[in-house]
Protein backbone atom coordinates (compact mmCIF):
# COMPACT_ATOMS: atom_id res chain seq x y z
CA UNK A 1 0.00 0.00 0.00
CA UNK A 2 3.00 2.31 -0.03
CA UNK A 3 2.48 5.35 -2.19
CA UNK A 4 6.18 5.64 -2.99
CA UNK A 5 6.20 2.09 -4.36
CA UNK A 6 3.71 3.21 -6.96
CA UNK A 7 5.52 6.40 -7.76
CA UNK A 8 7.88 5.85 -10.71
CA UNK A 9 10.37 8.22 -12.21
CA UNK A 10 8.17 8.05 -15.30
CA UNK A 11 5.11 9.28 -13.39
CA UNK A 12 6.87 12.17 -11.68
CA UNK A 13 7.38 15.55 -13.32
CA UNK A 14 9.60 18.05 -11.62
CA UNK A 15 9.09 21.06 -13.83
CA UNK A 16 5.75 20.73 -15.59
CA UNK A 17 4.47 23.65 -17.57
CA UNK A 18 0.68 23.86 -17.73
CA UNK A 19 -1.66 26.81 -17.89
CA UNK A 20 -4.78 25.58 -16.13
CA UNK A 21 -6.23 23.05 -13.73
CA UNK A 22 -7.76 21.03 -16.55
CA UNK A 23 -4.47 21.11 -18.45
CA UNK A 24 -2.61 19.68 -15.49
CA UNK A 25 -5.18 16.95 -14.95
CA UNK A 26 -5.31 16.12 -18.68
CA UNK A 27 -1.54 15.78 -18.80
CA UNK A 28 -1.32 13.50 -15.75
CA UNK A 29 -4.32 11.45 -16.93
CA UNK A 30 -2.49 10.89 -20.22
CA UNK A 31 0.65 9.73 -18.44
CA UNK A 32 -1.30 7.38 -16.17
CA UNK A 33 -3.19 5.93 -19.14
CA UNK A 34 0.15 4.85 -20.63
CA UNK A 35 0.61 2.46 -17.74
CA UNK A 36 -2.59 0.56 -18.54
CA UNK A 37 -2.86 -0.86 -22.04
CA UNK A 38 -6.24 -0.11 -23.59
CA UNK A 39 -7.10 2.63 -21.13
CA UNK A 40 -8.27 5.88 -22.65
CA UNK A 41 -6.81 8.97 -21.06
CA UNK A 42 -10.12 10.68 -21.63
CA UNK A 43 -11.92 8.34 -19.32
CA UNK A 44 -9.51 9.10 -16.50
CA UNK A 45 -9.79 12.81 -17.21
CA UNK A 46 -13.57 12.67 -17.05
CA UNK A 47 -13.64 10.75 -13.76
CA UNK A 48 -11.18 13.12 -12.12
CA UNK A 49 -12.88 16.25 -13.44
CA UNK A 50 -16.22 14.93 -12.19
CA UNK A 51 -14.75 14.67 -8.69
CA UNK A 52 -13.38 18.20 -9.04
CA UNK A 53 -16.86 19.39 -9.96
CA UNK A 54 -18.27 17.89 -6.78
CA UNK A 55 -15.54 19.44 -4.73
CA UNK A 56 -12.29 21.13 -5.69
CA UNK A 57 -9.36 19.13 -4.36
CA UNK A 58 -7.26 22.24 -3.92
CA UNK A 59 -6.83 21.59 -0.22
CA UNK A 60 -4.71 24.66 0.44
CA UNK A 61 -1.03 25.61 0.79
CA UNK A 62 -0.41 25.19 -2.94
CA UNK A 63 -1.42 21.54 -2.99
CA UNK A 64 -4.07 19.75 -5.03
CA UNK A 65 -4.98 16.06 -4.83
CA UNK A 66 -7.11 15.36 -7.91
CA UNK A 67 -8.46 11.84 -7.75
CA UNK A 68 -11.13 9.58 -9.12
CA UNK A 69 -12.42 6.07 -9.48
CA UNK A 70 -12.33 4.90 -13.05
CA UNK A 71 -14.43 2.10 -14.46
CA UNK A 72 -12.28 -0.43 -16.33
CA UNK A 73 -9.04 0.38 -14.58
CA UNK A 74 -7.20 -2.71 -13.26
CA UNK A 75 -4.98 -1.13 -10.67
CA UNK A 76 -4.41 2.09 -8.74
CA UNK A 77 -2.02 4.64 -10.18
CA UNK A 78 -0.40 7.78 -8.90
CA UNK A 79 1.38 10.66 -10.59
CA UNK A 80 3.02 13.75 -9.19
CA UNK A 81 3.92 17.06 -10.74
CA UNK A 82 5.69 20.13 -9.53
CA UNK A 83 4.57 23.00 -11.66
CA UNK A 84 6.88 25.60 -13.16
CA UNK A 85 4.19 28.28 -12.82
CA UNK A 86 1.52 28.03 -10.12
CA UNK A 87 -2.00 27.69 -11.51
CA UNK A 88 -5.40 28.87 -10.33
CA UNK A 89 -7.22 25.85 -8.89
CA UNK A 90 -10.22 27.03 -6.93
CA UNK A 91 -8.45 26.13 -3.71
CA UNK A 92 -10.03 26.69 -0.35
CA UNK A 93 -7.40 29.25 0.67
CA UNK A 94 -7.55 31.01 -2.70
CA UNK A 95 -3.84 30.29 -3.25
CA UNK A 96 -2.59 29.04 -6.60
CA UNK A 97 -1.38 25.45 -6.80
CA UNK A 98 2.16 24.33 -7.54
CA UNK A 99 2.09 20.72 -6.33
CA UNK A 100 -0.33 18.26 -7.90
CA UNK A 101 -0.66 14.69 -6.70
CA UNK A 102 -3.07 12.60 -8.73
CA UNK A 103 -4.57 9.28 -7.69
CA UNK A 104 -6.85 7.08 -9.76
CA UNK A 105 -8.10 3.63 -8.92
CA UNK A 106 -10.54 0.97 -10.08
CA UNK A 107 -14.22 1.60 -9.40
CA UNK A 108 -14.39 -1.67 -7.48
CA UNK A 109 -11.67 -0.86 -4.97
CA UNK A 110 -13.35 1.94 -3.08
CA UNK A 111 -11.80 1.35 0.29
CA UNK A 112 -8.25 0.91 -1.00
CA UNK A 113 -8.78 4.17 -2.87
CA UNK A 114 -9.80 6.02 0.26
CA UNK A 115 -6.89 4.57 2.16
CA UNK A 116 -4.40 5.71 -0.44
CA UNK A 117 -6.03 9.10 -0.58
CA UNK A 118 -5.64 9.45 3.14
CA UNK A 119 -2.03 8.32 3.05
CA UNK A 120 -1.21 10.85 0.37
CA UNK A 121 -2.95 13.49 2.45
CA UNK A 122 -0.90 12.63 5.46
CA UNK A 123 2.37 12.65 3.53
CA UNK A 124 1.59 15.99 1.97
CA UNK A 125 0.38 17.56 5.19
CA UNK A 126 3.97 18.07 6.31
CA UNK A 127 5.11 21.59 5.53
CA UNK A 128 8.84 20.93 5.53
CA UNK A 129 8.35 17.97 3.20
CA UNK A 130 6.43 20.16 0.77
CA UNK A 131 9.18 22.76 0.72
CA UNK A 132 11.76 20.03 0.15
CA UNK A 133 9.78 18.82 -2.82
CA UNK A 134 9.77 22.33 -4.17
CA UNK A 135 13.56 22.46 -4.04
CA UNK A 136 14.14 19.09 -5.76
CA UNK A 137 15.78 19.51 -9.16
CA UNK A 138 15.12 16.08 -10.67
CA UNK A 139 12.41 13.44 -10.84
CA UNK A 140 14.77 10.95 -9.21
CA UNK A 141 15.28 13.17 -6.20
CA UNK A 142 11.52 13.67 -5.87
CA UNK A 143 10.92 9.92 -5.87
CA UNK A 144 13.63 9.32 -3.28
CA UNK A 145 12.29 12.15 -1.10
CA UNK A 146 8.88 10.47 -1.19
CA UNK A 147 10.43 7.13 -0.24
CA UNK A 148 12.31 8.64 2.68
CA UNK A 149 9.29 10.56 3.90
CA UNK A 150 7.01 7.55 3.71
CA UNK A 151 9.55 5.50 5.65
CA UNK A 152 8.90 7.82 8.58
CA UNK A 153 5.18 7.17 8.43
CA UNK A 154 5.68 3.47 9.03
Amino acid at each position, binding site marked *: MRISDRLRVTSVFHDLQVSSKEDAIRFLAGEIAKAEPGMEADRILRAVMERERI*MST*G*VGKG*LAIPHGKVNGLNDSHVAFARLREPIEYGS*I*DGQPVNLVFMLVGPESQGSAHI*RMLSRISRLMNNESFRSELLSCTSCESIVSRFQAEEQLLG
Partner: protein
Amino acid sequence: MKVIIIGAGDVGYDLGAMLSEEKHEVVILDRDREALKKCREIDVLTVEGNATSAQDLVRAGVPEADLVVAATNLDEVNMVVSLLSKRLGAPKVIARIRNDEFSHPSAPVKAADMGIDVMIHPEQSVAREIVQLVKRAAATDVVSLADGAMQIVGLRLDKQCPIVGKKLSEVTTPGSGVVFRIVAVYRGGFTLIPTGNDRLQANDHIFVVARTEAIGEVLKLAGRTDRPIRNIMITGGTTVGAMIARLLCADATDWKVKLIEPDYDTAESLASELRDLLVLHGNPTDPNLLVSEGITETDVFIAVTEDEESNIISCLMAKHLRVPKAVAMVSKSDYIPLSQTIGLDAAVNKKLAASNEIHRHVRKGSVLAVAALHGIKAEILEFRAKAGSKIVKAPLARIDIPKGCVVGGIIRNGHAEVPTGESAVMEGDRVIVFCLTGAIEKITPYFG
Protein backbone atom coordinates in the same frame (compact mmCIF):
# COMPACT_ATOMS: atom_id res chain seq x y z
CA MET B 1 -23.30 -19.71 18.05
CA LYS B 2 -25.98 -19.67 15.37
CA VAL B 3 -26.87 -16.20 14.19
CA ILE B 4 -29.60 -15.32 11.69
CA ILE B 5 -29.23 -11.89 10.13
CA ILE B 6 -32.30 -10.45 8.41
CA GLY B 7 -31.31 -7.94 5.76
CA ALA B 8 -28.25 -8.13 3.54
CA GLY B 9 -27.57 -4.40 3.53
CA ASP B 10 -24.36 -2.81 4.74
CA VAL B 11 -24.88 -3.56 8.42
CA GLY B 12 -25.99 -7.13 7.72
CA TYR B 13 -23.09 -7.76 5.38
CA ASP B 14 -20.42 -6.34 7.69
CA LEU B 15 -21.79 -8.13 10.70
CA GLY B 16 -22.02 -11.39 8.76
CA ALA B 17 -18.43 -11.08 7.61
CA MET B 18 -17.21 -10.36 11.10
CA LEU B 19 -19.15 -13.20 12.76
CA SER B 20 -18.29 -15.81 10.18
CA GLU B 21 -14.63 -14.92 10.56
CA GLU B 22 -15.03 -15.72 14.23
CA LYS B 23 -16.39 -19.12 13.26
CA HIS B 24 -20.00 -18.48 14.15
CA GLU B 25 -22.65 -20.11 12.02
CA VAL B 26 -24.28 -17.29 10.09
CA VAL B 27 -27.37 -17.24 7.87
CA ILE B 28 -28.42 -14.08 6.02
CA LEU B 29 -31.98 -13.69 4.72
CA ASP B 30 -32.97 -11.09 2.17
CA ARG B 31 -35.38 -10.93 -0.73
CA ASP B 32 -32.89 -9.20 -2.99
CA ARG B 33 -30.96 -11.79 -4.96
CA GLU B 34 -28.22 -9.34 -5.92
CA ALA B 35 -27.57 -8.41 -2.30
CA LEU B 36 -27.37 -12.10 -1.40
CA LYS B 37 -24.96 -12.76 -4.24
CA LYS B 38 -22.54 -10.31 -2.65
CA CYS B 39 -22.86 -12.16 0.67
CA ARG B 40 -21.53 -15.34 -0.89
CA GLU B 41 -18.08 -13.74 -0.91
CA ILE B 42 -18.13 -14.17 2.83
CA ASP B 43 -18.54 -17.50 4.54
CA VAL B 44 -22.27 -17.42 5.30
CA LEU B 45 -25.37 -19.26 4.19
CA THR B 46 -27.86 -17.18 2.27
CA VAL B 47 -31.63 -17.62 2.10
CA GLU B 48 -33.80 -15.75 -0.36
CA GLY B 49 -37.05 -14.88 1.32
CA ASN B 50 -39.39 -12.34 2.80
CA ALA B 51 -38.40 -10.90 6.17
CA THR B 52 -42.01 -10.62 7.32
CA SER B 53 -42.99 -14.17 6.36
CA ALA B 54 -42.93 -16.55 9.33
CA GLN B 55 -42.45 -19.41 6.94
CA ASP B 56 -39.38 -17.88 5.42
CA LEU B 57 -37.97 -17.14 8.86
CA VAL B 58 -38.44 -20.80 9.77
CA ARG B 59 -36.71 -21.79 6.55
CA ALA B 60 -33.74 -19.56 7.50
CA GLY B 61 -33.51 -21.40 10.83
CA VAL B 62 -34.86 -18.83 13.27
CA PRO B 63 -36.36 -21.46 15.65
CA GLU B 64 -32.91 -23.00 16.20
CA ALA B 65 -31.01 -19.70 16.34
CA ASP B 66 -29.14 -18.37 19.36
CA LEU B 67 -29.49 -14.83 18.09
CA VAL B 68 -31.57 -13.04 15.47
CA VAL B 69 -30.48 -9.64 14.18
CA ALA B 70 -33.12 -7.60 12.35
CA ALA B 71 -30.99 -5.28 10.26
CA THR B 72 -33.17 -4.22 7.32
CA ASN B 73 -33.46 -0.54 6.48
CA LEU B 74 -37.04 -0.29 7.68
CA ASP B 75 -38.03 0.05 11.33
CA GLU B 76 -41.43 -1.53 10.67
CA VAL B 77 -39.96 -4.61 9.02
CA ASN B 78 -37.45 -5.01 11.85
CA MET B 79 -40.29 -4.83 14.39
CA VAL B 80 -42.26 -7.54 12.64
CA VAL B 81 -39.13 -9.69 12.31
CA SER B 82 -38.53 -9.31 16.06
CA LEU B 83 -42.10 -10.22 16.99
CA LEU B 84 -42.15 -13.26 14.74
CA SER B 85 -38.69 -14.42 15.79
CA LYS B 86 -39.53 -14.30 19.49
CA ARG B 87 -42.70 -16.28 18.77
CA LEU B 88 -40.65 -18.80 16.84
CA GLY B 89 -38.44 -19.28 19.89
CA ALA B 90 -35.36 -17.16 19.26
CA PRO B 91 -33.82 -16.52 22.69
CA LYS B 92 -32.33 -13.15 21.79
CA VAL B 93 -33.36 -10.57 19.22
CA ILE B 94 -31.45 -7.43 18.28
CA ALA B 95 -33.16 -4.91 16.03
CA ARG B 96 -32.01 -1.82 14.26
CA ILE B 97 -34.65 0.78 15.12
CA ARG B 98 -34.15 4.40 14.13
CA ASN B 99 -37.25 5.78 15.81
CA ASP B 100 -36.23 6.55 19.37
CA GLU B 101 -39.80 6.67 20.65
CA PHE B 102 -39.48 3.19 22.10
CA SER B 103 -36.48 3.96 24.25
CA HIS B 104 -38.25 6.63 26.33
CA PRO B 105 -38.99 5.42 29.84
CA SER B 106 -42.59 6.55 29.45
CA ALA B 107 -43.15 4.88 26.07
CA PRO B 108 -46.59 3.22 25.97
CA VAL B 109 -45.13 0.32 23.99
CA LYS B 110 -41.59 -0.74 24.88
CA ALA B 111 -39.06 -2.55 22.75
CA ALA B 112 -39.52 -5.68 24.84
CA ASP B 113 -43.23 -5.71 23.93
CA MET B 114 -42.17 -6.26 20.35
CA GLY B 115 -39.81 -9.07 21.22
CA ILE B 116 -36.75 -6.84 20.93
CA ASP B 117 -34.05 -7.45 23.51
CA VAL B 118 -31.65 -4.83 22.26
CA MET B 119 -32.27 -1.89 19.96
CA ILE B 120 -29.39 -0.52 17.98
CA HIS B 121 -29.18 2.75 16.20
CA PRO B 122 -25.94 3.22 14.23
CA GLU B 123 -26.53 6.86 13.33
CA GLN B 124 -27.22 7.72 16.92
CA SER B 125 -24.07 5.92 18.09
CA VAL B 126 -22.01 7.86 15.60
CA ALA B 127 -23.61 11.17 16.54
CA ARG B 128 -22.94 10.53 20.21
CA GLU B 129 -19.37 9.56 19.51
CA ILE B 130 -18.76 12.74 17.53
CA VAL B 131 -20.30 14.90 20.26
CA GLN B 132 -17.99 13.25 22.78
CA LEU B 133 -15.09 14.12 20.53
CA VAL B 134 -16.25 17.73 20.42
CA LYS B 135 -16.33 17.91 24.18
CA ARG B 136 -12.93 16.32 24.48
CA ALA B 137 -11.25 18.42 21.84
CA ALA B 138 -7.67 17.47 22.66
CA ALA B 139 -8.31 13.77 22.09
CA THR B 140 -8.46 11.85 18.84
CA ASP B 141 -10.74 9.14 20.20
CA VAL B 142 -13.07 8.91 23.15
CA VAL B 143 -14.78 5.76 24.35
CA SER B 144 -16.91 5.73 27.48
CA LEU B 145 -16.62 2.70 29.74
CA ALA B 146 -18.38 1.44 32.84
CA ASP B 147 -21.53 3.47 32.20
CA GLY B 148 -19.52 6.66 31.79
CA ALA B 149 -17.45 6.35 34.99
CA MET B 150 -14.28 5.81 32.97
CA GLN B 151 -13.08 6.95 29.59
CA ILE B 152 -10.44 5.84 27.21
CA VAL B 153 -8.97 8.63 25.11
CA GLY B 154 -6.65 8.50 22.15
CA LEU B 155 -3.83 11.05 21.90
CA ARG B 156 -1.27 11.64 19.22
CA LEU B 157 2.13 12.55 20.66
CA ASP B 158 4.07 15.22 18.82
CA LYS B 159 7.77 15.93 19.25
CA GLN B 160 7.20 18.66 21.83
CA CYS B 161 5.06 16.48 24.02
CA PRO B 162 6.62 16.34 27.52
CA ILE B 163 6.16 12.60 27.93
CA VAL B 164 7.96 11.65 24.69
CA GLY B 165 11.17 9.74 25.41
CA LYS B 166 10.02 8.68 28.84
CA LYS B 167 9.39 5.18 30.06
CA LEU B 168 5.80 4.36 30.84
CA SER B 169 6.73 3.62 34.43
CA GLU B 170 8.14 7.17 34.74
CA VAL B 171 5.03 8.70 33.24
CA THR B 172 2.56 6.92 35.44
CA THR B 173 4.25 7.32 38.82
CA PRO B 174 1.67 6.87 41.57
CA GLY B 175 3.00 9.98 43.38
CA SER B 176 1.65 12.34 40.75
CA GLY B 177 -1.85 11.92 42.10
CA VAL B 178 -3.33 11.31 38.66
CA VAL B 179 -4.22 7.70 38.19
CA PHE B 180 -4.26 6.52 34.62
CA ARG B 181 -2.88 3.79 32.47
CA ILE B 182 -1.57 3.73 28.92
CA VAL B 183 -3.22 0.63 27.60
CA ALA B 184 -2.25 0.63 23.94
CA VAL B 185 0.23 2.31 21.64
CA TYR B 186 -0.14 2.48 17.87
CA ARG B 187 3.27 2.92 16.32
CA GLY B 188 4.38 2.57 12.72
CA GLY B 189 1.38 0.51 11.70
CA PHE B 190 1.49 -1.82 14.69
CA THR B 191 -0.49 -1.93 17.89
CA LEU B 192 1.33 -2.81 21.07
CA ILE B 193 0.14 -3.32 24.59
CA PRO B 194 3.00 -1.64 26.42
CA THR B 195 4.75 -2.53 29.65
CA GLY B 196 6.32 -0.16 32.17
CA ASN B 197 9.69 -0.45 30.43
CA ASP B 198 8.52 0.72 27.02
CA ARG B 199 9.46 4.24 26.03
CA LEU B 200 7.06 6.64 24.34
CA GLN B 201 8.13 8.04 21.00
CA ALA B 202 7.13 11.03 18.93
CA ASN B 203 4.26 10.19 16.55
CA ASP B 204 2.96 7.47 18.86
CA HIS B 205 -0.79 7.30 19.05
CA ILE B 206 -1.50 6.34 22.63
CA PHE B 207 -4.69 5.19 24.30
CA VAL B 208 -5.12 6.10 27.94
CA VAL B 209 -7.72 4.95 30.43
CA ALA B 210 -8.69 6.91 33.51
CA ARG B 211 -11.70 7.84 35.59
CA THR B 212 -13.72 10.34 33.58
CA GLU B 213 -13.09 13.24 35.95
CA ALA B 214 -9.33 12.66 35.77
CA ILE B 215 -9.09 12.77 31.98
CA GLY B 216 -8.49 16.53 31.96
CA GLU B 217 -5.43 16.03 34.19
CA VAL B 218 -4.17 13.23 31.98
CA LEU B 219 -4.37 15.51 28.96
CA LYS B 220 -2.37 18.16 30.84
CA LEU B 221 0.36 15.63 31.64
CA ALA B 222 0.58 14.88 27.95
CA GLY B 223 0.94 18.58 27.28
CA ARG B 224 -2.57 18.87 25.85
CA THR B 225 -5.46 20.82 27.18
CA ASP B 226 -9.05 20.88 26.14
CA ARG B 227 -9.12 24.24 24.45
CA PRO B 228 -12.29 26.28 24.75
CA ILE B 229 -14.62 25.79 21.82
CA ARG B 230 -16.83 28.48 20.39
CA ASN B 231 -17.54 27.82 16.76
CA ILE B 232 -18.64 24.51 15.36
CA MET B 233 -19.39 23.87 11.71
CA ILE B 234 -21.30 20.83 10.49
CA THR B 235 -21.53 19.97 6.80
CA GLY B 236 -24.55 17.87 5.87
CA GLY B 237 -27.96 17.78 7.51
CA THR B 238 -27.97 14.00 7.18
CA THR B 239 -29.53 11.84 9.88
CA VAL B 240 -26.20 11.94 11.68
CA GLY B 241 -25.68 15.66 11.05
CA ALA B 242 -29.11 16.51 12.41
CA MET B 243 -28.58 14.35 15.48
CA ILE B 244 -25.24 15.97 16.21
CA ALA B 245 -26.86 19.38 15.88
CA ARG B 246 -29.63 18.35 18.27
CA LEU B 247 -27.20 17.01 20.84
CA LEU B 248 -24.97 20.08 20.61
CA CYS B 249 -27.89 22.50 20.84
CA ALA B 250 -29.30 20.65 23.84
CA ASP B 251 -26.03 21.16 25.66
CA ALA B 252 -26.07 24.20 27.88
CA THR B 253 -22.93 25.82 26.52
CA ASP B 254 -22.48 28.89 24.40
CA TRP B 255 -21.32 27.07 21.30
CA LYS B 256 -22.19 28.65 18.01
CA VAL B 257 -23.25 25.83 15.77
CA LYS B 258 -23.57 26.27 12.04
CA LEU B 259 -24.89 23.58 9.71
CA ILE B 260 -24.70 23.60 5.92
CA GLU B 261 -27.27 21.55 4.03
CA PRO B 262 -27.82 21.48 0.25
CA ASP B 263 -31.49 20.45 0.30
CA TYR B 264 -33.82 23.39 0.91
CA ASP B 265 -36.61 21.47 2.65
CA THR B 266 -34.24 19.63 4.97
CA ALA B 267 -32.48 22.88 5.81
CA GLU B 268 -35.74 24.64 6.52
CA SER B 269 -37.16 21.92 8.73
CA LEU B 270 -33.94 21.76 10.76
CA ALA B 271 -33.93 25.52 11.13
CA SER B 272 -37.46 25.57 12.45
CA GLU B 273 -36.81 22.67 14.81
CA LEU B 274 -33.57 23.97 16.33
CA ARG B 275 -33.68 27.66 17.05
CA ASP B 276 -30.13 27.80 18.42
CA LEU B 277 -28.77 26.30 15.24
CA LEU B 278 -27.73 28.47 12.34
CA VAL B 279 -28.76 26.53 9.24
CA LEU B 280 -27.41 27.55 5.86
CA HIS B 281 -28.92 26.35 2.67
CA GLY B 282 -25.92 25.78 0.43
CA ASN B 283 -23.47 23.32 -1.01
CA PRO B 284 -21.21 21.93 1.73
CA THR B 285 -18.61 20.89 -0.85
CA ASP B 286 -18.13 24.42 -2.12
CA PRO B 287 -14.83 25.69 -0.69
CA ASN B 288 -15.85 29.30 -1.26
CA LEU B 289 -18.95 28.86 0.86
CA LEU B 290 -16.96 27.18 3.63
CA VAL B 291 -14.58 30.13 3.65
CA SER B 292 -17.25 32.80 3.50
CA GLU B 293 -19.07 31.07 6.33
CA GLY B 294 -15.97 31.28 8.44
CA ILE B 295 -14.29 27.87 8.36
CA THR B 296 -11.06 29.64 9.35
CA GLU B 297 -12.59 30.78 12.65
CA THR B 298 -14.06 27.36 13.32
CA ASP B 299 -12.84 25.37 16.32
CA VAL B 300 -14.41 22.09 15.31
CA PHE B 301 -15.27 21.05 11.77
CA ILE B 302 -17.56 18.05 11.36
CA ALA B 303 -18.04 16.57 7.89
CA VAL B 304 -20.98 14.19 7.81
CA THR B 305 -22.35 14.41 4.26
CA GLU B 306 -23.29 11.22 2.43
CA ASP B 307 -20.22 11.61 0.21
CA GLU B 308 -17.29 10.09 2.07
CA GLU B 309 -14.62 11.41 -0.24
CA SER B 310 -15.87 14.95 0.20
CA ASN B 311 -15.92 14.45 3.95
CA ILE B 312 -12.26 13.57 3.85
CA ILE B 313 -11.21 16.30 1.44
CA SER B 314 -13.09 18.99 3.33
CA CYS B 315 -11.53 17.85 6.61
CA LEU B 316 -8.12 18.09 4.97
CA MET B 317 -8.93 21.59 3.90
CA ALA B 318 -9.97 22.40 7.44
CA LYS B 319 -6.68 20.99 8.72
CA HIS B 320 -4.69 23.07 6.25
CA LEU B 321 -6.59 26.11 7.45
CA ARG B 322 -5.50 25.22 10.97
CA VAL B 323 -8.92 24.32 12.28
CA PRO B 324 -7.97 22.66 15.58
CA LYS B 325 -10.28 19.71 15.21
CA ALA B 326 -11.70 18.04 12.13
CA VAL B 327 -13.97 15.00 12.23
CA ALA B 328 -15.07 13.05 9.17
CA MET B 329 -17.73 10.40 8.92
CA VAL B 330 -16.89 7.43 6.78
CA SER B 331 -18.89 4.28 6.59
CA LYS B 332 -16.95 1.48 4.99
CA SER B 333 -15.45 -0.81 7.59
CA ASP B 334 -12.15 -0.89 5.72
CA TYR B 335 -11.71 2.79 6.32
CA ILE B 336 -11.03 2.34 9.99
CA PRO B 337 -7.30 3.07 9.87
CA LEU B 338 -8.19 6.43 8.41
CA SER B 339 -7.80 8.59 11.46
CA GLN B 340 -4.26 7.34 11.81
CA THR B 341 -3.24 7.51 8.19
CA ILE B 342 -4.85 10.79 7.34
CA GLY B 343 -3.64 12.76 10.32
CA LEU B 344 -7.20 13.83 10.92
CA ASP B 345 -8.30 14.10 14.46
CA ALA B 346 -10.93 11.52 13.98
CA ALA B 347 -12.83 9.59 11.43
CA VAL B 348 -15.93 8.05 12.84
CA ASN B 349 -17.26 4.93 11.29
CA LYS B 350 -20.97 4.41 11.06
CA LYS B 351 -20.93 0.71 10.48
CA LEU B 352 -18.32 -0.02 13.07
CA ALA B 353 -20.54 1.67 15.61
CA ALA B 354 -23.38 -0.70 14.70
CA SER B 355 -21.23 -3.81 14.64
CA ASN B 356 -19.68 -2.92 17.99
CA GLU B 357 -23.09 -2.80 19.55
CA ILE B 358 -24.23 -6.06 18.03
CA HIS B 359 -20.94 -7.77 18.65
CA ARG B 360 -21.04 -7.44 22.39
CA HIS B 361 -24.20 -9.51 22.46
CA VAL B 362 -22.64 -12.30 20.48
CA ARG B 363 -19.78 -13.12 22.79
CA LYS B 364 -20.80 -15.60 25.39
CA GLY B 365 -19.87 -16.29 28.98
CA SER B 366 -18.40 -13.73 31.28
CA VAL B 367 -17.88 -11.05 28.65
CA LEU B 368 -20.20 -8.13 29.34
CA ALA B 369 -19.22 -5.69 26.65
CA VAL B 370 -16.92 -5.30 23.74
CA ALA B 371 -15.78 -2.25 21.88
CA ALA B 372 -13.18 -1.88 19.19
CA LEU B 373 -10.89 1.09 18.95
CA HIS B 374 -10.77 2.83 15.63
CA GLY B 375 -7.82 1.79 13.60
CA ILE B 376 -5.93 -0.29 16.05
CA LYS B 377 -5.98 -4.01 16.44
CA ALA B 378 -7.03 -4.05 20.07
CA GLU B 379 -10.34 -4.48 21.77
CA ILE B 380 -11.86 -3.36 25.01
CA LEU B 381 -13.59 -6.16 26.86
CA GLU B 382 -15.61 -5.97 30.00
CA PHE B 383 -15.78 -9.13 32.11
CA ARG B 384 -17.60 -10.14 35.25
CA ALA B 385 -15.17 -11.95 37.57
CA LYS B 386 -16.65 -15.25 38.72
CA ALA B 387 -16.04 -16.89 42.09
CA GLY B 388 -12.98 -19.14 42.07
CA SER B 389 -11.73 -17.86 38.73
CA LYS B 390 -8.03 -17.32 38.15
CA ILE B 391 -8.30 -13.53 38.20
CA VAL B 392 -9.59 -13.34 41.80
CA LYS B 393 -6.83 -15.47 43.32
CA ALA B 394 -4.16 -12.81 43.98
CA PRO B 395 -3.15 -9.19 43.46
CA LEU B 396 -2.77 -8.41 39.76
CA ALA B 397 1.05 -8.22 39.95
CA ARG B 398 1.14 -11.87 40.97
CA ILE B 399 -1.17 -13.13 38.28
CA ASP B 400 0.44 -14.16 35.06
CA ILE B 401 -1.69 -12.08 32.67
CA PRO B 402 -1.27 -13.25 29.05
CA LYS B 403 0.96 -11.18 26.77
CA GLY B 404 -0.97 -8.57 24.82
CA CYS B 405 -3.49 -7.95 27.61
CA VAL B 406 -3.74 -5.32 30.31
CA VAL B 407 -6.31 -4.73 33.03
CA GLY B 408 -7.43 -1.11 32.76
CA GLY B 409 -10.28 -0.81 35.19
CA ILE B 410 -12.07 -2.48 38.07
CA ILE B 411 -15.66 -1.54 38.88
CA ARG B 412 -16.92 -2.56 42.29
CA ASN B 413 -20.32 -1.48 43.60
CA GLY B 414 -20.55 1.15 40.91
CA HIS B 415 -17.18 2.65 41.77
CA ALA B 416 -14.50 2.54 39.08
CA GLU B 417 -10.75 2.46 39.70
CA VAL B 418 -7.67 2.22 37.54
CA PRO B 419 -5.82 -0.72 39.14
CA THR B 420 -2.17 -0.93 40.18
CA GLY B 421 -0.14 -4.11 40.63
CA GLU B 422 -1.35 -4.32 44.23
CA SER B 423 -5.02 -4.18 43.30
CA ALA B 424 -6.92 -7.42 43.57
CA VAL B 425 -10.02 -8.34 41.65
CA MET B 426 -12.87 -9.66 43.75
CA GLU B 427 -15.72 -11.95 42.85
CA GLY B 428 -18.49 -10.03 41.11
CA ASP B 429 -16.27 -7.13 40.02
CA ARG B 430 -16.62 -5.82 36.52
CA VAL B 431 -13.17 -5.75 34.97
CA ILE B 432 -12.13 -3.81 31.91
CA VAL B 433 -9.39 -5.44 29.88
CA PHE B 434 -7.58 -4.16 26.82
CA CYS B 435 -6.14 -6.77 24.60
CA LEU B 436 -4.82 -7.40 21.16
CA THR B 437 -7.43 -9.13 19.05
CA GLY B 438 -5.43 -12.37 19.03
CA ALA B 439 -5.21 -12.50 22.82
CA ILE B 440 -8.96 -12.44 23.52
CA GLU B 441 -9.20 -16.22 23.67
CA LYS B 442 -6.29 -16.38 26.12
CA ILE B 443 -7.67 -13.90 28.63
CA THR B 444 -11.30 -15.06 28.65
CA PRO B 445 -10.67 -18.22 30.78
CA TYR B 446 -9.15 -16.09 33.57
CA PHE B 447 -12.60 -14.85 34.46
CA GLY B 448 -14.22 -18.22 34.99
